[in-house]
């Protein structure tokens, strides 16, 4: 199975939609129930394979289940039915700079964030220079991160996450931040990833980005997989459904 990086196998994920949610003991005791709810299917029997070494895009309109699927891939949500199998180490970048402590210096936060993302102290020390170099905040590394500009904050967070060095990288729309130069740096990093035979799975609303980066895509619509396969044809079908003519 070396040619498949991730297998998404009949994954179904539902959420409870609460009409009345009582997170208090009083109502639980007084009425003998905590909530009235119905299930909402965010993902309905989705199956596809992500080939190893590919850059795989997830596309679809808002509320189509992309983020839910991404969270399932990242082991944050667990599917109700079906299974996700990954072959290799997986790391997710759903948000950059998670767990940063505002009062601590950039340096301390690199170690803290690195360990939250699953890196050992040794790994972080070894890659420290690379992280700082990539982030371009060298001058401010001993300042508390609360004084960072939002761009610096994101760049540092991204630099740590990208250096986790997984076999499979799951990326949410984090690239929308940072200036053009930094975005180009990130894209270059993804290309390096691909060249090293690693897999990137990303979510984006920007079709030009997906077109430029991905060779495979899956199109989700209201939790149902509409199409999966080569990027070009999937994107075309998606755009067609939106009544937007592809370029």
């Amino acid at each position, binding site marked *: 199975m070396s040619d498949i990086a991730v297998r998404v196998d009949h994954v179904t994920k539902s*959420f409870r939609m609460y009409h009345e949610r009582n*997170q*208090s*003991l*009083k109502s*639980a005791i007084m009425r003998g129930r*905590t909530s009235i709810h119905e299930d909402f299917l965010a993902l309905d029997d989705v199956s596809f394979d992500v080939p190893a070494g590919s850059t795989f895009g997830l596309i679809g309109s808002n509320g189509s289940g992309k983020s839910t699927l991404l*969270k399932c891939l*990242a*082991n*944050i*949500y*667990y599917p109700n039915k079906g299974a996700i199998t990954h072959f290799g180490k997986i790391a*997710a970048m*759903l*948000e950059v700079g*998670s*767990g940063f*402590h505002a*009062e*601590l210096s950039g340096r*301390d936060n690199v*170690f*803290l964030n690195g*360990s*939250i*993302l*699953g890196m*050992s*102290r040794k790994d972080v020390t070894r890659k420290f220079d690379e992280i700082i170099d990539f982030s371009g905040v060298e001058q401010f590394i001993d300042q*508390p991160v609360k004084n960072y500009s939002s761009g610096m904050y994101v760049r540092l967070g991204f630099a740590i996450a990208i250096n986790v060095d997984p076999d499979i990288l799951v990326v949410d729309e984090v690239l929308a931040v940072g200036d053009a130069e930094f975005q180009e740096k990130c894209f270059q990093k993804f290309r390096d990833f691909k060249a090293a035979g690693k897999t990137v799975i990303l979510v984006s609303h920007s079709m030009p980005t997906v077109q430029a980066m991905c060779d495979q895509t899956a199109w989700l619509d209201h939790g149902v997989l509409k199409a999966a396969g080569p990027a070009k044809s999937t994107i075309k079908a998606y755009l067609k459904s939106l009544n937007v003519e592809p370029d």
Partner: protein
Amino acid sequence: MKYLNEVWSSRELLFNLVSRDVRGKYKRTVFGQLWSLANPLALMLIYSLVFGVFFPSNPRAGDPSGLNVFALWLLCGLLPWTFFSAVVSSGAGSLVDNANLIQKVSFSRIVLPFSTVGAAAYNWMFEIAVLLIAITIAGGFVLPWIPLVIVAMALLALFAAGVALLFSIANVYFRDTQYLLTIVLQFWLYLTPIIYPIERVANKSAEIGGLGGTPVRIVDIYNFNPMVHFVALFRELIYDNRFPDPLEWLICLIWAVAALSFGMLVFRKNERNLAEAL
């Protein structure tokens, strides 16, 4: 077993989170770490004035240490209590406070409540060290008991961790928990022989006798409180300078193991649901 392995492999993350709490807490304060001693000192002053002078609770002198200083006697029970209550109340909020992290990154969630235990334990070690020095100056011979004090601290930390795990999960589903908890902790403080000696309860209980014609006495119910036994351990080691009854050790050990295993069991069962429930 597999779960324990997973928890163990997150120890580095645990260490980093503890150091985040410890270092981040007193940033930009003039007195820094000294603030952690301020709270127990203030409590000591208040209680010493009220229960040492106005309504003297007259604890017996340390046996065989011969110490007879109310403030020191009080601290031997108060410091373990403030540690316990700090762990439980901050542990209870640990998951809700880190909701964002839980929803964005996959890691062993149990390190969050555990890290509050670590951060509180760090402060507690200073407090106990200061107390031991004060006892030595007052004439107690506590030095040879230090290893056993450390064992007792470890047992209480495990017990507190277990209780904190349970409340952290409860707080995710019922946010009332944290408010209820402050009240519960108030009651719990006064139901533990910290500011009055346990002999008072024993005497009163003997006076009243069996409740409602049964052989069950007040003190039997009172002894269900695990903190009664933990406080007894610390008092006998630090204030009396003697070896506590092995039965007392056993009771504390059982409470610690039971609380921690039950806490971990419940935590593990709910761990996967946290990202959605928060």
